[in-house]
């Protein structure tokens, strides 16, 4: 069956050829039917003519019998008028004979001419008999009838009877032939129909199979591809569009396999690279931890000795040494904050900072921030207030240590940048969040720099750093801690009037541990 597939021709042409073949078969069947119908009508016409000939022949036969009978009657009734009836009958006879002669073939015409010759001779004898009857010579007339007319009529009658028999036989044979032809054409038509149906069915089956088989094969390959098994091929005997389709499919599958292999290779490389990066990141973390240790050890000694010196452990401290000693301590603590901030930020960026979610009280957190910064505020003569909205739930969720760190950063900055007036920390409910706000009456932030305050190592202006100190990392770290909680942070500020920093922490905070 694959030979249909192997034919190098488009599917459309194959289908056209198949349909054309079937159409031709039907045309042939139609032509044959037309031919058969024509043949049948010709045969039935012949039969009709034969039937007419038989009727004429029988009419002739009958007319002849009438003539004989009428002649006998004329002799019996001795009436000449009866003979005239014979003549009338003769006219009918001649008419029928002429019709028959026109309808028959040559051999039969010879017989008819002989019959006519006999009849003409008979008519002469009838005329003689009529004359004798008129003259009253009945005996002579009877004698003439018996010796001449009667034998002559009998010989004509025999000939006509033979003719009738022949016509009859011809008609019977024609009828038989017609019946046989009918039978034959019926068989031929049935065969034609059967062959056409078989051919149409067979052709349809062969062609559809040649088309369906590659579809099944392609289906199988597509299933494999869908299942992620690339590289399989599909082979079909088709040399048509389906053959081309199969070849394309196979090429696609091979290409997919190649891409898959490439992708796997790339993934492997990426994996290796990732492992290296992870190692590098770990090394970085370790380096930072070590650095932190290395920096803290001498810092510990500096701060320790300074404290012991200030505490009078080495003897009374001269008044003029007290301020420089306090300066050493302030700067030492600043350096410590810097180290801590850098460490925090690097941990956040390495994704190693994790929040310790716990239940906490806003009142407590805010109170601890106030306690830590109160002395600074008092030193600067600033008003430092905390307000906790009574509508806030008593128990909140979050990393209290980090939230406190955020508030310390914001409030520390606020105190730092405020020369007169005060700083207020507020905690209030804001929808599904708790909102912490730190507002001051400080120098404010120019509008064009508001967007940048949360960027790393940024302070509004380099001179600000010199005047007020600070690492420039506090706000950036604060923003990251807030975002790790799933909250957001923003700032409102008017230059020379003050700033307000707000951040929210979701009340049901169960969020991702990394930013």
């Amino acid at each position, binding site marked *: 069956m694959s030979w249909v597939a192997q034919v190098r021709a488009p599917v459309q042409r194959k289908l056209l050829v198949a349909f054309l073949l079937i159409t031709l078969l039907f045309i042939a069947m139609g032509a044959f039917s037309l031919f058969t119908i024509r043949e049948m009508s010709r045969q039935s016409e012949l039969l009709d003519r034969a039937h007419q000939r038989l009727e004429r022949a029988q009419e002739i036969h009958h007319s002849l019998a009438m003539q004989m009978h009428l002649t006998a009657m004329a002799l019996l009734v001795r009436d000449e008028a009866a003979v005239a009836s014979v003549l009338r009958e003769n006219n009918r006879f001649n008419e029928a004979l002429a019709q028959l002669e026109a309808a028959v073939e040559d051999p039969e015409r010879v017989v008819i001419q002989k019959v006519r010759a006999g009849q003409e001779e008979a008519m002469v004898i009838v005329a003689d008999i009529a004359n004798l009857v008129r003259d009253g010579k009945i005996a002579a007339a009877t004698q003439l009838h018996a010796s001449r007319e009667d034998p002559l009529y009998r010989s004509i009658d025999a000939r006509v009877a033979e003719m009738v028999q022949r016509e009859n036989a011809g008609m019977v044979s024609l009828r038989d032939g017609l019946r046989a032809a009918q039978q034959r054409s019926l068989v031929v038509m049935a065969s034609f129909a059967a062959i056409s149906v078989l051919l149409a069915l067979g052709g349809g089956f062969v062609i559809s199979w040649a088309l369906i088989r590659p579809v099944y094969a392609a289906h199988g390959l597509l299933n494999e591809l869908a299942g992620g098994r690339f590289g399989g091929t599909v082979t079909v005997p088709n040399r048509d569009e389906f053959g081309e389709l199969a070849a394309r499919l196979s090429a696609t599958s091979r290409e997919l396999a190649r891409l898959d292999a490439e992708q796997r290779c790339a993934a492997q490389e990426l994996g290796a690279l990732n492992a290296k990066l992870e190692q590098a990141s770990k090394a970085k973390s370790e380096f930072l*931890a070590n650095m*932190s*240790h290395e920096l*803290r*050890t*001498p*810092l*510990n*000694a*500096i*701060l*320790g*000795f300074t*404290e*012991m010196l200030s*505490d009078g*452990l*080495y003897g009374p401290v001269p008044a003029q040494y007290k301020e420089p000693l306090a300066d050493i301590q302030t700067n*030492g603590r600043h350096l*410590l904050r810097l180290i*801590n901030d850098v*460490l925090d930020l690097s*941990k956040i960026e390495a994704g190693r*900072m*994790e929040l310790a979610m716990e239940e906490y009280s806003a009142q407590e957190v805010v109170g601890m921030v106030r306690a830590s910064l109160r002395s600074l505020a008092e030193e600067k003569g600033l008003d430092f207030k905390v307000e906790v909205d009574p509508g806030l739930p008593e128990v909140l969720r979050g990393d209290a240590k980090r939230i406190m760190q955020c508030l310390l950063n914001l409030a520390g900055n606020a105190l730092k940048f405020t020369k007169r007036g005060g700083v207020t920390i507020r905690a209030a409910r804001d929808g599904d969040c708790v909102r912490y706000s730190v507002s001051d009456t400080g120098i404010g932030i120019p509008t064009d720099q508001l967007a940048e305050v949360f960027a790393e190592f940024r302070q509004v202006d380099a001179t600000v750093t010199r005047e007020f100190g600070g690492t420039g990392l506090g706000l950036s770290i604060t923003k990251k801690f807030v975002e790790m909680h799933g909250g957001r942070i923003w700032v409102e500020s008017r230059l020379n009037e003050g700033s307000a920093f707000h951040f929210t922490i979701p009340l049901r905070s169960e969020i991702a541990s990394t930013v």
Partner: protein
Amino acid sequence: MSQKTILYVEDNEFNRKIIRQLLAQTSYRLREAHDGESGVRAAQDELPDLILMDVQLPKMSGLEATQRLRADPRTAAVPIIIITSYAMDGDAQKANDAGATAYLAKPYSPRHLLAKIREIVPEA
């Protein structure tokens, strides 16, 4: 009451000097060790009243030394304050797991440390 002995295990000379000078004003007797191994040995020999243990030490870490001392029945009950400059999260937990009595992060205030020592081992 007899004089209380404190063992300080620390590799940095300046940090040792701070404690030395801090305790010189008190009645505590100070023993020093420069690394983890000698720290453990000194603790087993001296059976001090309190041990101050740094974490980052040569030869053996302060955490491991603490575990060793906790495993030894003679030193299992000696209070140990772990002092670390490794400000990583979970350090306090690690110190606690190792069996430390208290935990202090560097830089510490000498004043606070002394208060802590007096709280755990009152002066004679």
